[in-house]
C-alpha cells in the first residue's frame, strides 16, 4: 500500500466518521434521545436484580458485576446493531451499490463507524455507572494493571467486530430477521460469559462458553478490573483469547469478501426488517 492509497483510505474514513457523526448524533438528535432511553432501560433491568441481594451482601461488589455486564453487553449490542445491522441499512437505503462502484472496499466505512461507536460505548458506561451508583451502590472496581485492561478491551472489540462481519455478511447474502438478531444479541452474552464470570456458570455452559471466542475477552476484562478471578491462568486466557480473536477476525474478513464476490455476481438482495 503506497502513501497515496493510505491518504485516500484516511480521507474515506474521516468522511464516513463525519457523516455518521452528523446523521446519528447531531441531525437526528440521537445523542439526547438515545441517552435518555438508555438510562431508563438500564433502570428497568437493574432494579429487579437488586431484589436478589440479601441485606448482608456487599452492594458495591454487585454494582461492579452490573457495570462489567453493561460494558460487555453494550459492546455486543453495538457489534450487532451498529456494525452488523449497518449492512442492512446500507442495502435498504440503496447506498451499498454506490459504495461498490466507487471501487473502495466497503469495510472502509467501518473505519468511520467504529470510532463513533467507541464514543457511544464510553458514554453508555458513564451512564451505566451513574445509574448503578444511584440505584445500587458505587461499583467496586480496581484497575491495577491498566495496559492489561486496555488490551482486554481491545480484544473484546476485535471479537465483536469479527462477529459483526459474519452477521453483516449473512444479512448481505440472505437477508436476516431483526427479531432473530435481537434474540441472538441477548443470548450470546448470557451463554458465553458476557454477564457472568465463568466460575459462576454451570459446568456444561462454561465448557461451551470456552469453545467460543467470546468468553476470553470478557473474563480477562473482569479480571483486569479486579471484579473476579479467571477460570484458567489469566496469561494463558489472554494468549488463547488473542489467537482465537485474530483467527475469528480472519474468518470474518474472508467471509465478508466471499459475500462481496457473490453479491457482485448475483446483485444486491432485498433485506427484510423483521
Amino acid at each position, binding site marked *: 500500500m503506497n502513501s497515496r492509497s493510505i491518504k485516500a483510505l484516511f480521507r474515506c474514513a474521516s468522511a464516513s466518521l463525519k457523516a455518521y457523526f452528523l446523521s446519528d448524533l447531531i441531525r437526528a438528535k440521537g445523542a439526547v434521545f438515545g441517552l435518555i432511553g438508555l438510562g*431508563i432501560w438500564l433502570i428497568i*433491568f437493574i432494579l*429487579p436484580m437488586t431484589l*436478589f441481594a440479601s441485606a448482608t*451482601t456487599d452492594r458495591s461488589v454487585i454494582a461492579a458485576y452490573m457495570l462489567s455486564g453493561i460494558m460487555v453487553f453494550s459492546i455486543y449490542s453495538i457489534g450487532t446493531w451498529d456494525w452488523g445491522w449497518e449492512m442492512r441499512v446500507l442495502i435498504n437505503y440503496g447506498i451499498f451499490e454506490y459504495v461498490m462502484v466507487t471501487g473502495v472496499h466497503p469495510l472502509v466505512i467501518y473505519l468511520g463507524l467504529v470510532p463513533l461507536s467507541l464514543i457511544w460505548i464510553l458514554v453508555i458506561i458513564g451512564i451505566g455507572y451513574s445509574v448503578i451508583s444511584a440505584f445500587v451502590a458505587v461499583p467496586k472496581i480496581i484497575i491495577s494493571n491498566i495496559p492489561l485492561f486496555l488490551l482486554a478491551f481491545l480484544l473484546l472489540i476485535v471479537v465483536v467486530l469479527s462477529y459483526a462481519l459474519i452477521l453483516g455478511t449473512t444479512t448481505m447474502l440472505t437477508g436476516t430477521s431483526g427479531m432473530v438478531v*435481537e434474540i441472538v444479541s441477548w443470548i450470546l452474552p448470557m451463554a458465553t460469559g458476557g454477564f457472568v464470570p465463568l466460575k459462576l456458570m454451570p459446568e456444561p455452559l462454561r465448557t461451551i462458553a470456552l469453545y467460543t471466542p467470546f468468553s476470553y475477552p470478557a473474563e480477562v476484562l473482569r479480571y483486569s478490573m479486579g471484579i473476579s478471578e479467571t477460570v484458567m491462568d489469566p496469561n494463558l486466557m489472554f494468549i488463547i483469547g488473542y489467537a482465537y480473536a485474530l483467527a475469528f477476525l480472519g474468518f470474518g474478513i474472508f467471509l465478508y469478501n466471499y459475500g462481496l464476490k457473490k453479491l457482485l455476481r448475483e446483485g444486491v438482495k432485498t433485506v427484510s426488517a423483521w
Partner: protein
Amino acid sequence: MRFSEFIELVKVEYMMVAAEILRRKAALFTIVAWPYVLMLFVVIIGSIMGGFTYFQQNVGVNPLLFFITGSYLLMTSLAFFDEIASRFLYDEFIGTLPYVIISPTSKVVLALTMGIPRLIINVLMGLTSLIPIYVYLRGPQGVLDAFVVILLSIFSALTFATLAVIFASIVLISGGKWRAMNILRPLMLLLSGVMYPRYLLPLITKLITGFVPLAHSVEVIQLFIRYNTFSEYMFMLMGIATALAIIYLPISMKGLRAWELKYIKEGAKT
C-alpha cells in the same frame, strides 16, 4: 360506523398481522422465545447477586414466576402503543400513509382496531410462556392460575389502550418518531412496575404511577400470583384502572384527531 364494519376491520387487520407472523417463522419463534429470554436474563444475573431465597423474601413470589409473568406482560401491555405508533410511522416511511389518511375509516377506530390482532397473538403467547412455568412451579393448579393471569393481562391491555393512544399521538405529533417512542416505551414499562413492584419505587414515581391504568392492573396480577386469591383491594385497583381508561378516552380521540389534522395540513413528508 356499524359494529359489523368494525368486526370486518378487525378481521382484515388480524389477517394481515397473522399472515406476517406465519410467513416469517423467525418472528413466530421470537414471540415464543422472547419471554423466556427476558426471564433468564434477569434471573441468571440476579441469582449471582444473591439468590432466589432473598428474592422470595423481598417480593414474596418465586422469581421464575414473577419474571415470566413480567416478561409476558411487557409484551402484551404495550400491544396497542406499539402497533398504533409504529404502524403509522411505518406507513409514513413506506409512503402509504396518505392512502390511510384519505380512507373514509375513522383513524381513532382504525387505531383501536390495530392493537387487537397483536393483542390476540400476544395473549396466545401466554399459553407457551406462562403455562409451562406455572405448571412446573404449581402443578395442575398452575394451568388455572395462568388462565386467570392471561384474562387479567387482556384487561390490562384494554384499560391501557386509551392512554396508549395518547402516548402514540404524542409520538406522532411531536415528530420525534422512533426516538420519542424509544423513550416513552421504557418509561411506561418502568411506571407500570412489570419488572419491579411499584410499591418499592420511590414515592414521587409511585405517585405518578397512580395515573397509569397499567400500573394498577399489573399490581393486581402481581398480588394474584402472590396470594392466589382476589381481595377487595384488588377489585378497587381494577376499578381505578377502568375509570382512568374512561377518563383518557376523549383525550385519546382528540389526540389522534389532532395528529390527523396536522398531517392533512402539513402534507406528507419523506
